[in-house]
């Protein structure tokens, strides 16, 4: 059937529909609701007001603010990132579950993103009602960083080749940080372990002055960790350094959402690497992804059936989705506009070399007691 088209303004399109379209384009909210939720938290208007710096002019970080660096960084289109956290005085992190730390009310986190210059600083605070999210955009001369609106900012600083960094909407903050049980994605026993993985894509040296798990435990800012985690710095158990790095990358970049629980539990797909499991249990990625069929079909790739296809990187749906920035295909679905080529090479090599049927895939990722 072939139907005629009409412009938005022509007869037949009702006024209400036009208003709806306008609202959708502009983001202006026009529909009244019968029972609006309670008044939301109002983020500070500037980064300065969040308390990160004690001296704004010199960018001196306030006392008690801890610099940290996860060993498996999240890919953010090549941004250079700096991260800080601050606990309210006299409080500590409850780490009885080493994979899901509980933070006291008042805990604050900041993450700065730089490309050719500072682009944004994200701010997360633990409020009594839950987590609070805000993002601050730096001006061109880096003298001010002001609150970005609820809908984010698609055109921030240029990354390269005409591609702009995008500052996420507050809804997108929640999509990532509230998708699973871990809300602060880079702050876990594994991520802060002193046994850092030198092969992690985009691995950073621990910055001078940064805290790691050992220092947090020694300063009693992290308490309750199981003895197995404190006796030996936690690390991913894997048969090869390549497998270790691959499992770490997938955990940090995909395992925030793909935990096998919550709203995505019907996928039975988990890429988060957990310390809190029996020693004889496979790492979730090994158990749920290797030679396990995907529900997604990659357009034009009928041979890509399994999430990770042993020995065949190009027939692996995970690889195809990592390699795409088509919004209908790409993974992760948000927070990145450029393919992580370094990680893609790593994951391909891992599938080709370590996930061959003859390899000891059955033992990969079994946690060492």
């Amino acid at each position, binding site marked *: *059937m072939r139907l005629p088209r009409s412009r938005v303004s022509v007869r*037949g399109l009702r006024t*209400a*529909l036009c208003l709806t379209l306008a609202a959708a384009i502009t983001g202006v*909210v026009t529909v009244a609701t019968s029972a609006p939720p309670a008044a939301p938290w109002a983020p500070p208007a500037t980064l300065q007001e969040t308390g990160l710096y004690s001296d704004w002019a010199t960018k001196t970080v306030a006392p008690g603010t801890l610099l940290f660096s996860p060993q498996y960084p999240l890919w953010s289109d090549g941004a250079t990132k700096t991260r800080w956290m601050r606990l309210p005085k006299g409080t500590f992190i409850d780490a009885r579950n080493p994979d899901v730390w509980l933070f006291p009310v008042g805990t604050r986190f900041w993450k700065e993103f730089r490309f050719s210059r500072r682009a944004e600083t994200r701010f997360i605070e633990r409020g009594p009602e839950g987590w609070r999210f805000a993002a601050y955009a730096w001006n061109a001369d880096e003298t001010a960083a002001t609150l970005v609106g609820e809908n984010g900012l698609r055109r921030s600083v240029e990354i390269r080749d005409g591609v*702009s960094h995008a500052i996420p909407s507050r809804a997108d903050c929640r999509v990532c940080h509230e998708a699973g049980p871990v809300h602060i994605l880079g702050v876990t026993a594994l991520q802060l372990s002193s046994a850092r993985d030198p092969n992690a894509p985009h691995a950073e040296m621990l910055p001078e002055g940064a805290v790691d798990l050992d220092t947090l435990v020694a300063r009693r800012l992290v308490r309750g960790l199981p003895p197995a985690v404190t006796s030996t710095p936690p690390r991913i158990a894997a048969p090869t350094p390549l497998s270790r790095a691959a499992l770490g990358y997938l955990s940090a970049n995909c395992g925030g959402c793909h935990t096998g629980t919550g709203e995505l539990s019907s996928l039975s797909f988990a890429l988060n690497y957990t310390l809190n499991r029996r020693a004889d249990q496979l790492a979730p990625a090994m158990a749920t992804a290797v030679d396990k069929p995907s529900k997604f079909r990659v357009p034009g790739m009928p041979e890509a059936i399994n999430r990770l296809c042993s020995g065949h990187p190009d027939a692996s749906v995970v690889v195809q989705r990592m390699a795409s920035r088509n919004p209908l295909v790409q993974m992760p*679905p948000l927070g990145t506009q450029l393919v992580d080529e370094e990680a893609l090479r790593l994951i391909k090599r891992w599938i080709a070399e370590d996930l061959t049927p003859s390899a000891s895939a059955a033992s990969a990722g079994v946690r060492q007691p």
Partner: protein
Amino acid sequence: MMRARQIVATSGLVAVVVWTAGARVGAQEKPAAAAKAAAAKPAASNAGQVARGKYLVVGHGCNDCHTPYKMGDNGPEPDMTKFLSGHPADMTLPPPPQPVGPWIASVSASFTAWSGPWGISYTANLTPDKDTGLGTWTSQQFVDTIRNGRVQGHGRQLLPPMPWPAFKNLNDADLKAMFAYLQTIPAIKNKVPDPVIAPPPPAK
């Protein structure tokens, strides 16, 4: 009994209705046809929720875009045989016209295909069809979709003219009521095409 349990595991809220109905009549084997009929008719336990959902779906104009329009005696009117089933899969459309001056958007006569700076969007199938509609969705996935503006709460972004920036202000109870109602309408198999998403604007 076992059949009812299996349905509960696979079909979300509608199945809860089935389970509730089955539990009330006792631990008997429920024929598939009866289970289907029970699914189509809301159980007393959530009748109020479904009624509230219908009120909201009708009052918020879901029909305006998610039911294809056809030309009738009174001009364009929704084709109720395709109630809330989204852009018809068998409808062939030419490329949209190029925007002229301040006119930046176009819409098909069915009101189910929209073109603008975001690309081309096709309205979704909101019926409980398991393959092409919301039949396998959970109530929470529906809430998250509206709240986050992403498919099933985590996937690709919803595109204009879907007014999720307005609807996200509805409370959870109302969004769940809308979903409960949508699960009671006739399932229509209609695979809506994927959108064509415009590339992001170039850097300044």
